[in-house]
């Protein structure tokens, strides 16, 4: 590190200095996205609970009609994307904290990605099918 880069002289912000650093060279982006998706889910929580309440005890035809309607489909899609992203990051943190065998860690992180993406895509596909009737 040259003298110009030392914190005392640097004009870079603390956030600027940590960007692109860390074990994954992605800096604080996961930290930020974890908070972003968390806030998104808090905002979506009441609409999602309302949707589920509306569908309690109702049959499939009614569920299809409600889940397939534009506002509900958008709420559900946003919730699915936020939760899948959030849980992928969260599980990766747990894996990195507790699994110290490098190979096992990489395999676990890979499976975590597969699981999160598969759950998200399956749910998204179901919502799109309910909306368009394909």
């Amino acid at each position: 590190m040259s003298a110009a880069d030392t914190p005392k002289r640097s004009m870079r912000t603390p956030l600027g200095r940590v960007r692109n650093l860390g074990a994954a060279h992605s800096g604080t982006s996961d930290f930020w996205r974890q908070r972003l998706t968390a806030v998104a889910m808090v905002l979506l929580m009441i609409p999602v609970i309302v949707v589920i309440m509306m569908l309690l005890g109702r049959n499939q035809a009614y569920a299809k009609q409600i889940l397939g309607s534009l506002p509900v489909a958008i709420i559900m899609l946003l919730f699915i994307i936020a939760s899948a992203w959030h849980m992928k990051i969260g599980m990766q943190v747990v894996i990195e904290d507790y699994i110290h065998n490098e190979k096992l860690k990489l395999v676990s992180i890979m499976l975590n990605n597969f699981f999160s993406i598969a759950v998200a895509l399956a749910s998204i596909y179901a919502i799109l099918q309910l909306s368009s009737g394909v």
Partner: protein
Amino acid sequence: MQIYRWTLTMALSIVHRATGIALYVGTLLLAWWLIAAASGPAAYAHVQAFTGSIIGRLIMFGYTWALMHHMLSGIRHFVWDLGYGFKANEREALTWGALIGGIVLTVLIWIVAYAIGGGR
């Protein structure tokens, strides 16, 4: 590890992770429900038979609590991220708030659910 005196905030930190892992696995239920709704009446009836059973209701109740607790506990972490609530009494208050609030919200949601869904 044994020399640590367990505090509420330490225990709740573990609970935050445990509920997170439970919610992670539980997204399979959400996906199953949505796929069944898209598949047709027979598949949807299977999901309803499961969620209507005693085991299913217990799992759904546990899932509701895990979600509510994780959310409130997460908001607690968010307050800490913003740099507030680090004093001893504030830490304790936030942690108790998440613990009690999670249980209260869960019970409230189920009272409303039974009030609405019970008659259908």
